[in-house]
Structure formats: C-alpha cells, structure tokens
C-alpha cells in the first residue's frame, strides 16, 4: 500500500519501514524550536532532573520574538533567564530580540529542509511544511521531554489531500486562498489530521505564499501541513542549507482519508470576520466597514511579497487620517530587503508606523494594542476575541493587499478597486 509524505517522514523518524495512520510511535526529533516560552520550557526541564542537559544543543533553536524587545520588567527578566540558559547549554542557535519571528528566522537561516520532523512550542510551527517537512506544535512539557531525550511519542495522523487549481486573479493572494479553504473545512475540520497540498495553484505559488498556506492550515486544527518540495523549494534552500537531504514524496497509490478539490480561478479576496477564522466572507460582503487600525505583519503575512504588494498599493499615496497602520516585517532580513527596494520609504511616507520584526500586535501585548469598540483589519494569524487587545474590539483578517487598500480608504476595501 502506498504511503503519504506524512507516513514516510514519521516512519523514518521512528526507525521503522512503514507506519499506519492511528499507530503510536516514538519518534526522533530533527529540530526543536521554541521562542519566549523557552522560559517555561526551561523551568519544566529543570524539574525533570536537577542537572539535566539538553540532548543535542545543535538541534535546538531559540528565537525571542513574542515580546521583543522586552515590553516590561517581567519580560526582561524572562529574556535574561533564557540568555543564561542557552549559554549554559551551549545552544548556539539562539536569536535574540530583533532578528525576527521564529518561523521566518528558522526558515531563512537554513534549519529547515524536506523530510525533517520538526517540533516547536508554537502552534504555527506547521509553517515549515512549506518546505516538505513534517512540523507540528507542542506544549512546554512535551518540549522539555524532547530537550531531555530527543524523542517524542506521536500518533500517526490520517492524511487529507488538498488539490488546488486555477490561477488567482489580480490582488488575490495565498491568504485569500487559505481563508477560503478554512471556511469550507471549518476550524476543527482537520483536527488531528495531516494535510498535503497539491495542484497547479500551489506549484505556481512563491515560497512566501506557500509558507502562508502551511502557517494558516493550523487554523483547521491540523497536526502538520505539507507541500511537496520542487524547484522553487530547492532554489530557496540552495544558499541556506549546507549538507545533503533527501526529499520525501507520496506514492502514487498513497491512501488519503479524504480529498478536497478547490478551483480558485474566480475567487475574490476573502475576509475572516470576528471572532472565528472560519467566519469567512467574500470581500464584496464586508466592504465599507470603517477601520481604526490596519496591521501588516506576523508569521502569516509579514514576508517580502506581502510588504511589496502593500508598497505597490500605497506608493505616492497617504493612508486615511482615521487609521493607524502598523507594519512589522517578519525578520531582519525581510526588513533589509524592504529598505533596499524602497518599500519602507513608501510606507513611511504613506503614514504607516514601522515596528521591529517580531510578533508584536498579533499577540495584543504591545506595538499597537487595540481599544474597546475599535475595528482592525489585519494580515496577522488569528481573530479570536481579545487576541489583539480589548475583548470588545473586532478583528477582520485579510490579505496584505486588502489591509493596504483598507488603510488607504479608512474602511474595508477591495484592493482590486485601487
């Protein structure tokens, strides 16, 4: 019987010839990523054994991104503790404040390649599936176990296959496509499943777009979201990954629990309305709603192509005086490229506030917290009540193009009208 990418990666990680969906395995982890919650992980890790040492410091990556730079004395103390921890444990893959959002940094620095089993203490760890890896989010206790033993028990998930076809229209982005998919599948429609994405739309998509798809797939409950590697993947990895890797592909007769077919040729920009990500409407049904804040950034949509499209829309223009526009490029590298291409200058002149790379406003802690009764249009990851500040605020999630167009007009705007 043929196998999916998911089954092949997990079999290899478990040291077995093959695995079946539903089977419990103990797998060897190739990479363990954590961010500011390294503080909690290290606290639990020290509880296991007093003089516990990390099983393999080279396979551990720590990125400070959630409250970066520190927003309070409490956070500063936590960051200080983490810096001490990585030093004691010889974790040289440590990226301090300002380097960027963990998923972007870990990908850019060449830690990710096809066929890997990656765990991270962040639900959006699924992002690495854009490079053909099996990557999943875990909690702090599980990560403390991984740090101790390099291993983790997993249940092999069933695999869903998504076939996406059609050429997206002008200003229709990866974010619109994945929001549309989430609306059809539902926020728990793929719970405990692995998803594999195929079709000419995915093939035609940039790496930035693929990362957005794999990132947002977790909003359907997935354990992992995998895009098979191709020339675009290899071109991206060429200058970053040193060493050999073996790409993993599904067999032609692989068994999927279910197939989903989407034709996105006529898809219009999509907007996820409060307070659930599957509450998605075509933009034509929400245009005209006034907005107080527009946010461009996050691990979902803070990459070069996202900021490029916003710059294209806002070039030579000024955003509405009623809107605060906050832009956070996903990493130092993305920020530098945006400077080089002149995007930052365009956005600053248009009236945007540029903040440093990090999770920033997506977490509702600093860099643009929203007040009660306010409405925000945002390219960030989630629209849960209270996510970006007051629980009495409304979050509308949309593509970077829609966010930029809405900032310009001061109300939710179809970017195709600009």
């Amino acid at each position, binding site marked *: 019987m043929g196998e999916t990418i998911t089954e092949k990666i997990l079999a290899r990680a478990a040291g077995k010839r093959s695995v079946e969906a539903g089977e419990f395995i103990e797998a060897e982890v190739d990479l363990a990523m954590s961010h500011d*919650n390294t503080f*909690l992980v290290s*606290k*639990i890790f020290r*509880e*296991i*054994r007093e003089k516990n040492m990390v099983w393999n410091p080279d396979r551990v990556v720590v990125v400070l991104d*959630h*409250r970066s730079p520190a927003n*309070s004395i*409490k*956070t500063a103390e*936590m960051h200080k503790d983490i810096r001490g921890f990585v030093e004691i444990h010889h974790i040289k893959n440590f990226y301090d404040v300002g380097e960027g959002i963990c998923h972007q940094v870990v990908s850019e620095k060449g830690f990710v390649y096809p066929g890997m089993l990656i765990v*991270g*203490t*962040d*639900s959006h*760890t699924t992002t690495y599936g854009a490079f053909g890896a099996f990557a999943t*989010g*875990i*909690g*702090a*206790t*599980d990560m*403390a*176990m991984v740090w101790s033993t390099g291993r983790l028990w997993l249940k092999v998930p069933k695999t869903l296959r998504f076939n996406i076809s059609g050429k997206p229209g002008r200003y229709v982005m990866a974010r619109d496509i994945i929001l549309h998919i989430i609306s059809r599948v539902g*926020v*728990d429609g793929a*719970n*405990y499943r692995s998803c594999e994405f195929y079709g000419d739309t995915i093939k035609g998509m940039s790496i930035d777009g693929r990362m957005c798809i794999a990132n947002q797939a977790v909003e359907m*409950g997935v*354990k992992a979201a995998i895009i098979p590697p191709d020339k675009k993947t290899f071109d991206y990895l060429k200058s970053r990954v040193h060493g050999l890797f073996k790409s993993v592909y599904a067999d032609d007769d692989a068994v999927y629990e279910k197939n989903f077919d989407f034709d996105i040729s006529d898809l219009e920009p999509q907007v996820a309305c409060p307070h*659930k990500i599957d509450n998605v409407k075509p933009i034509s049904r929400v245009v005209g709603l006034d907005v107080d804040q527009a946010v461009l950034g996050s691990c979902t949509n803070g990459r070069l192509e996202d900021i490029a499209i916003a710059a294209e829309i806002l070039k030579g223009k000024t955003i509405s005086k009623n809107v605060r526009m906050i832009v956070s490029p996903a990493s130092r590298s993305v920020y530098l490229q945006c400077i080089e291409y002149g995007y930052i200058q365009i956005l600053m002149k248009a009236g945007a506030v540029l903040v440093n790379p990090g999770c920033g406003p997506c*977490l*509702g*802690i600093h860099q643009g917290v929203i007040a009660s009764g306010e409405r925000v249009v945002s390219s960030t990851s*989630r629209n*849960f*009540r*209270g*996510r970006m500040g007051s*629980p009495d605020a409304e979050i509308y999630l949309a593509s970077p193009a829609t966010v930029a167009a809405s900032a310009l007009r001061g109300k939710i705007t179809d970017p195709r009208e600009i």
Partner: protein
Amino acid sequence: MIIKGKAIKYGNDVNTDVILPGRYLHLTDPEEMVKHVLEDLDPDFLKKFHIGDVVVAGRNFGCGSSREQAVMCLKYAGVGCIVAKSFARIFYRNAINQGLPVVESPDAADIIDSGDELEIDINEGFIVDKTKNLRFSFHPIPGFIKKILEAGGLIPRLKKLGEE
C-alpha cells in the same frame, strides 16, 4: 480516580486566547494566573466556580495557540475535569501532561446543563449526571495516561518512576 463537581457549560471552539489571553502570558505565579482564567469568555467564571467543578463544552475545546499556560490556569484554579465533544490536539496533550483530566463525550457535552451535579469515573469511563439521573460512558483512558493523571502530570510521573 473519581471527580465530583458542578457543570459550567460553554459552546464550541473555546480557544486558548479566551482561556488565558496573551496579555497574561508573562505571569508565572499560579495565584495571579488564576485571576484571569476564562476572563475573555466569561468574566463571571470565578464567581460561579467552586474547586472541583467541571467545565463542559462543545467541539474543539482549546483550539489556537500551543500555550500550556491555558491548561495550567484551569488546573491551578482547581477545575476537576473538562468534558467536551472534542478537543484541539495540542490542548489535549498539554492537559494530560499537566495532569488535568480531559474526557471526550459528545452525548454528555450535549445533554449536561450548567449547574448539573456530575460524578466522573476516569478509571471505569463513565459520567453520571446526578441532577438529570443520566449516565454516559466514554472510551476508557489508556493505562499509561491514567498513571500520568494520577501522578498529577508527566513530570511528577517521571519523578515517581525515577524513585521506583
């Protein structure tokens, strides 16, 4: 392992942001965390709640972030058990690792109302709604998970194994 308490019921897709909002993730003191449990979903939760009470909910409980603090604050508050139609996968794992019993029972989650007196037998796999005089069974929890729950979480369980 038997849990006795009153039901406090919520709907589908109770996410980690409403269980413990991001603005409180810097808290490490259990007492401080408990003050904000479920704050954005139900500001009156702590007024209704007594130690040992059972949170009952619909589908996909704990969806969203991987933050283990969402489980920790429920546990620190003294929630006896969570009964739901289904759980989001990271939350489910975190709950077991923290020693907070989680039970999937679509029927029970449908029929139980807030205020019902419940008795949950984790070993035998059933819930009794004493108010309605109904009994619901669920798939018994595997032995190794029961041992983690009895020890109060994965780390206490490991320590116990080390001592044995």
